């Protein structure tokens, strides 16, 4: 609140200063406000668009290769998994506080009884989860002795945000796992040339109509779609180059502005318009591409990382924020776009008469509008040459989450191998719980469990109670960020305990087969540790060497330590 008040006070102070120095003229105040808003919007728009113009073709080009896409997903998996874990833990911590508040029956808790009941309903803590919460966490839950309105307000806000954050990262993780599964299935189908994703449990009419055979589906996903992506990446790369070219040369040599040339199809017409329907379509397409480039960058800037768009569960504040960014960027980009055309055309438009005259009222405004867009080269080069990644490595923090080739080897982030192991564990964990369609179960109680797939009503055959050990076993879930040399050892065994509850219903043999396969898989994907232990025997171990059996021609040091024969005892 203090921040908002300070901001408001500064705005009032600037306004008063302006009125005192220039007098109160409504039109000049309006003009100044419009020019300032345009300038701020243009700075933001040019920077974000410059980044987006490189990102869109590059992403499409990289996603044309299925194996590269899978590798990227596996590289991101550890980070997403960590975030998911953190969000679950944060949510659980807050729920413990709510539980503790609910248990309190004396003192200030009584004054806010209704509010606490609302919080309890919001968190929708079932009895089973309440019983499973560790007692130790309740003791240090952080609930103060005296409960104030401010504390409850903070708790309410934090709980809502934690719920949305949890749903957001659960969805992100699930969509990552699903996409990785689909890609893996497609790659595995290369030999058989028959592709079936196995998502056929829907009972709706659409799923009963099979448009594609497994053979055509394989070719569609393995060959046709990657080719389309590749073609579009080249088209968008060309479009980006044309826009950047036009931004640089629109003022100096307007005749070579490519965007302008592609729109004005009848430059010498006098009795009829110079721009026809085809030119209008081109203009619309260019403008859409420019806006899309700017908006795609918004989702990548880390400064705004707390805000995210989640399917069906976007936080209202995030949705509001994204919508205002769309509104903020469109007007400056649109005006910037019409300046690509020849001056005698764009100066006749109603848009220029309404807005452009005010922007170009001062020479500073006119020069800013004409020359500032050349600044687009900065984000374009920064993005093209991955300067954000280098800045991150030098300064230790980054402000743009450009994940194209940031840390391609996965050094110090767990790497793609760990990501693959996590995804495999998720796959086999889901199948061990009897979820045949490998999608998370679906529940109306959205505050309690993750339920973004709300297109169809929940099905009674889905085992939603089985999901709770999977999702809510957070106190016992293994920490994904374990050191490289030891990560694969404890991880499978600890990962088994949350799934044990669902095993009995599945049948022991199937579970053990899956478990063995999973463990084997995990060990197969392990890197051998880099450190080398020199197992040469020291001289003092050579005493009593002849006592060993004939099969142990060269007993290892561990054998000698634990066999306890001759001189092989452990010396302390």
């Amino acid at each position, binding site marked *: 609140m203090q921040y908002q008040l300070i901001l408001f006070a500064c705005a009032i102070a600037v306004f008063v200063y302006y009125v005192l120095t220039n007098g109160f003229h409504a039109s000049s105040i309006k003009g100044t406000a419009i020019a300032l808003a345009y300038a701020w919007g243009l700075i933001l728009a040019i920077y974000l668009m410059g980044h987006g113009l490189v990102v869109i073709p590059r992403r499409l080009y990289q996603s044309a290769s299925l194996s590269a896409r899978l590798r990227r997903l596996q590289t991101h998996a550890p980070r997403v998994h960590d975030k998911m874990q953190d969000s679950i833990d944060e949510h659980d911590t807050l729920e413990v506080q709510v539980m503790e508040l609910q248990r309190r029956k004396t003192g200030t808790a009584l004054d806010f009884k209704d509010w606490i009941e609302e919080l309890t309903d919001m968190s929708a803590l079932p009895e089973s989860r309440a019983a499973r919460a560790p007692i130790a966490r309740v003791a240090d839950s952080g609930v103060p002795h005296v409960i104030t309105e401010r504390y409850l307000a903070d708790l309410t806000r934090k709980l809502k945000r934690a719920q949305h954050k949890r749903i957001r990262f659960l969805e992100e993780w699930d969509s990552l796992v699903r996409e990785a599964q689909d890609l893996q299935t497609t790659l595995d189908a290369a030999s058989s040339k028959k592709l079936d994703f196995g998502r056929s449990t829907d009972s709706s009419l659409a799923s009963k109509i099979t448009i594609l055979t497994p053979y055509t589906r394989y070719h569609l996903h393995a060959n046709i779609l990657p080719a389309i992506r590749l073609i579009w990446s080249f088209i968008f790369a060309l479009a980006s180059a044309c826009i950047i070219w036009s931004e640089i040369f629109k003022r100096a040599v307007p005749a070579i502005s490519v965007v302008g040339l592609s729109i004005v199809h009848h430059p010498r017409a006098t009795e*009829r318009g110079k721009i026809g329907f085809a030119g209008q379509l081109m203009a619309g397409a260019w403008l859409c591409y420019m806006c899309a480039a700017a908006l795609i960058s918004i989702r990548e800037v880390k400064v705004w990382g707390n805000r995210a768009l989640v399917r069906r569960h976007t936080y209202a504040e995030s949705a509001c924020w994204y919508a205002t960014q769309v509104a903020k960027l469109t007007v400056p980009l649109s005006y910037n776009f019409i300046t690509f055309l020849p001056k005698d055309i764009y100066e006749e438009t109603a848009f220029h008469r309404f807005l452009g005259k005010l922007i170009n009222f001062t020479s500073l405004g006119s020069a800013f509008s004409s020359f500032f867009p050349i600044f687009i080269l900065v984000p374009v080069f920064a993005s093209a040459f991955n300067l954000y990644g280098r800045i991150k490595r030098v300064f230790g923090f980054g402000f743009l989450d450009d994940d194209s080739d940031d840390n391609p080897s996965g050094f110090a982030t767990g790497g793609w191998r760990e990501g693959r192991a996590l995804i495999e564990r998720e796959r086999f964990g889901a199948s061990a719980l009897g979820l045949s369609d490998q999608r998370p179960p679906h529940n109306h109680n959205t505050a309690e469990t993750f339920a973004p797939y709300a297109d169809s009503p929940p099905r009674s055959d889905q085992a939603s109670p089985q999901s709770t050990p999977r999702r809510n076993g957070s106190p016992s879930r293994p920490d994904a960020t374990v050191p490289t040399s030891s990560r694969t050892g404890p991880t499978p065994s600890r990962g088994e305990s949350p799934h044990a509850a669902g095993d009995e219903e599945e049948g022991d043999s199937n579970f053990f087969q899956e478990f063995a396969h999973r463990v084997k898989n995990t060990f197969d994907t392990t890197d051998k540790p880099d450190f080398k232990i020199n197992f040469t025997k020291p001289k003092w171990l050579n005493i009593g060497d002849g006592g060993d059996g004939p099969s142990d021609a060269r007993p290892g040091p561990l054998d000698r330590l634990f066999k306890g024969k001759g001189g092989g005892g452990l010396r302390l």
Partner: protein
Amino acid sequence: MAVEAASSTVFALSLAAISALTLLLLRHYLPIRSTPAYLLLPIFLALALPCSIILLVPIDLATNSVEDEDGVARGISLPDGFMTAMWRIAYWLTFVLTWYDKFHEFCASFMPNDFPGSFCPFSVITSILVIARLELAFSIQSAPTCNTN
């Protein structure tokens, strides 16, 4: 005359399509039933108005790219006065909506809890509608003179 009627029809259909697509987008990302109206309406406008601007720019270019005063525009074109009115409404509503999230945060920082029916967002909605009404009235009033701010 026929061209003007066709252009107006295409423009109206395009606006309807933009509204429908925006609603679908909102439905995809937001729980529509549980989101209050004082958030849904500004978010809808903040998405639909920029789309209408993307529609307006090519129409504006085609309408005003005729060199002769008696010339006929190609493609989809609308009367100049109508274009000016649309630009005024679209621009000023977008301008207000640009600051809506800041205003929302400002109001939220004064309220201890989320506020159904609070006067702050309600006043924003009212001001949006008042601005739209004033701009429309002003544009209609200045239509004979045209071409002015």
